[in-house]
């Protein structure tokens, strides 16, 4: 070591300078604004134009909300209060709020029933959506459809119980027979279920008052409740049906394959609104007089078929994306068809299909408003029909349609956010 450096040198600094904040033009809000909003003359102009438009929208909409009237009984009174000022007449929402939610014929003293069903729905779907929750909650999921039916439609609790018993008996028979052959298991299960349902008529008919809630007929359902019933039921029914159709379309069994192909192609080739008209009007001609085939049930069947066909194609896309080696590997492990599907193929195929399935589900939920054209009073039907046609509220548009938007948006957005979260959760593959 040389000693040339041992003597202190005057111009060498021996202490660190304190850190200084970055110059105002390189960091902080001003820099952000400079970089993102006023970077060059072209961006500056765009920013100024955009700000101007935002100003126009806000200054136009703000008084409309701010001066909004919430407590009058008719549009004429609203106008009287506003005296020509800009302002929304939101009283239509407060006055007709129960009608927007439940339709105009659901008995008002029974509103608590669909409300409970609505909140129970979140408990019931939670374990399906989030697999970190305790598995025991799945019991709630299994009970929910029957409980919700009982709550919303009323009548004796025995009816949904017997339907459930029929399904359980069918399942038990299926598990007993499935070891002999899967076809026998399915047929046996089906026969047992139907038999229980037929026999249960002898129990439910005389005991129709047992634990009965006041029955509410289907045609009294309405409002957002109807959209929700249709949306939830049809999505949850069409998903399994769609998967079956997709598998059936890939099947080697010729008849099954062609049934599925014809079903999918036919349903996809017909507009939903046509199917709804068939459900509403045409079936009335075909069924013998005196037949009563519940309208909501007809609509549920039609919408379910419709979305099942779309989901089938989405799932088929997922199946096609899997390398053939996956199925061969499953076969070489000695798994049979059902096992390889359940353990190897479908988990991967469904993961790929999530965006498509969610797309169909969101679309389906929004399509439920189409039932308003067959004179069912869902949310849109209520607005277009009874509310806008009442003498008091004839002429209120923006407020009502804005409310409809606010009903649908959070739910559709929520579904979409959930699916993105789920994709991240399942992102285990190589990208």
């Amino acid at each position, binding site marked *: 070591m040389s000693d040339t450096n041992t003597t202190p040198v005057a111009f060498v600094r021996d202490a660190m300078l304190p850190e200084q904040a970055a110059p105002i033009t390189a960091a902080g809000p001003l820099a952000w604004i400079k970089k993102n909003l006023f970077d060059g003359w072209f961006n500056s102009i765009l920013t100024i134009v955009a700000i101007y438009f935002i100003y126009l929208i806000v200054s136009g909409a703000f008084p409309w909300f701010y001066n909004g009237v919430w407590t009058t009984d008719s549009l004429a009174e609203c106008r009287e209060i506003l005296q020509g000022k800009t302002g929304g007449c939101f009283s239509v929402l407060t006055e007709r709020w129960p009608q927007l939610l439940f339709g105009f014929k659901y008995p008002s003293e029974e509103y608590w029933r669909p409300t409970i069903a609505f909140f129970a729905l979140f408990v019931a779907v939670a374990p399906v959506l989030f697999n970190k929750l305790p598995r025991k909650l799945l019991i709630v999921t299994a009970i929910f459809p029957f409980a919700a039916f009982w709550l919303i*439609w009323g009548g004796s609790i025995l009816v949904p119980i017997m339907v459930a018993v029929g399904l359980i008996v069918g399942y038990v028979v299926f598990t007993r027979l499935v070891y002999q052959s899967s076809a026998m298991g399915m047929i046996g299960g089906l026969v047992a279920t*139907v038999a229980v349902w037929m026999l249960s008529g002898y129990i439910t008919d005389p005991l129709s008052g047992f634990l009965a809630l006041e029955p509410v007929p289907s045609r009294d359902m309405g409002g957002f409740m109807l959209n929700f019933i249709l949306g939830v039921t049809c999505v949850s029914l069409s998903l399994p049906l769609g998967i079956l159709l997709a598998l059936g379309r890939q099947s080697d069994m010729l008849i099954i394959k062609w049934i599925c192909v014809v079903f999918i192609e036919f349903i996809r080739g017909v507009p939903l609104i046509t199917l709804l008209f068939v459900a*509403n*009007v045409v079936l009335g001609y075909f069924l013998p007089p005196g037949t009563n085939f519940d309208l909501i049930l007809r609509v549920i069947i039609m919408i379910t078929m419709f979305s099942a066909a779309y989901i089938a194609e989405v799932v088929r896309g997922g199946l096609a994306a899997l390398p053939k080696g996956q199925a061969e590997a499953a076969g070489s492990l000695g798994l049979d068809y059902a096992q390889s599907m359940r353990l190897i193929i479908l988990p991967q195929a469904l993961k790929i299909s999530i965006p498509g399935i969610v797309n169909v589900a969101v679309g389906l939920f929004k399509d439920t408003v189409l039932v308003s*054209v067959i004179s069912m009073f869902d949310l849109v039907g209520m607005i277009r029909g009874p509310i806008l*046609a*009442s*003498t008091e509220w004839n*002429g209120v548009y923006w407020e009502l349609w804005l409310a409809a938007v606010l009903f649908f948006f959070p739910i559709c957005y929520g579904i979409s956010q959930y699916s993105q979260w789920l994709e991240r959760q399942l992102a285990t593959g190589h990208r």
Partner: protein
Amino acid sequence: MKKSVFFGAMTVAALAAGAAAAGTLDDVKARGKLNCGVTTGLVGFAAPDANGEWQGFDVGVCRAVAAAVLGDPSAVEFVPTTGKTRFTALASGEIDMLARNTTWTFSRDVDLKFEFVGVNYYDGQGFMVPKALGVSSAKELDGATVCIQTGTTTELNLADYFRTNNISYEPVPIETNAEAQPLYLEGACDVYTTDASGLAATRAAFENPGDHVVLPEIISKEPLGPLVRHGDSEWGDVVRWSLNALIAAEELGVTSANIGEMSMAAGDNPEINRLLGTEGTLGEMLGLSADWAKNAIMAGGNYGEIFEKNIGENTPIGLGRGLNAQWTDGGLLYVPPFR
């Protein structure tokens, strides 16, 4: 049995739907409810109020028939129908009668196999334009865009009228009256055309009704009335004479206020006596009770009372009686005698 479990609870009220073709009167009596087809909503004519009770001029007819047949004006199941579903609903037996401001036309009566039992409102198609357009006659509307409801007679009338006058127009099809209002106000169409009653109701709901004028031309006859299926004349008679009873009651000065007193005992006027069942057997001939007409009138008052309550000059709709006055007042309401 299977059905009783599977669909049972869902279909309690739908049980009644799908009545057989013949013997509608017996079906209604057995069911204890009248299935009456109405519109999904038309201001003043039929719409449910905040409590879910149907109100309106057409609804009044349904209630009167229900009261005449079943003695209870609330024994009605209102089945909302759109312009497109109304006729299938009636033909398939889902409803017993249709009171949905439906125009009585030849083809509907003959070809579609329905029976119009009378007219409860004489309407006619008119035009509404903004004052700023400076138009004073429909003949000046050459090249105008016109908002028009599809599936209605107004659509056909419009085509006929413009063809006859050799002028052109551009139709903007819409589904309901409610849809037409914002379109018209935003200027999507220059002209809105529908029945004059609908125009009046629409205009009354505008923020500045004075900015819009209804043109003087009425280009069509629109006799609106209740209808039933062909081939069941007994039921047709019941509906026809229930409506006639309302009109006759006004002519004879029977109102919901004095009917209790008048129907207590036979009075001086034999026609009132026959109408209210204190004399003669008119009710029996129809297969109804003797006080059928009294019940029908008590359901909502006589024709004039129903008119005033729902669409008359003191309501926001503010329609004058015009053609719908009694024949004695220069209108067209003229019912055959109750004899």
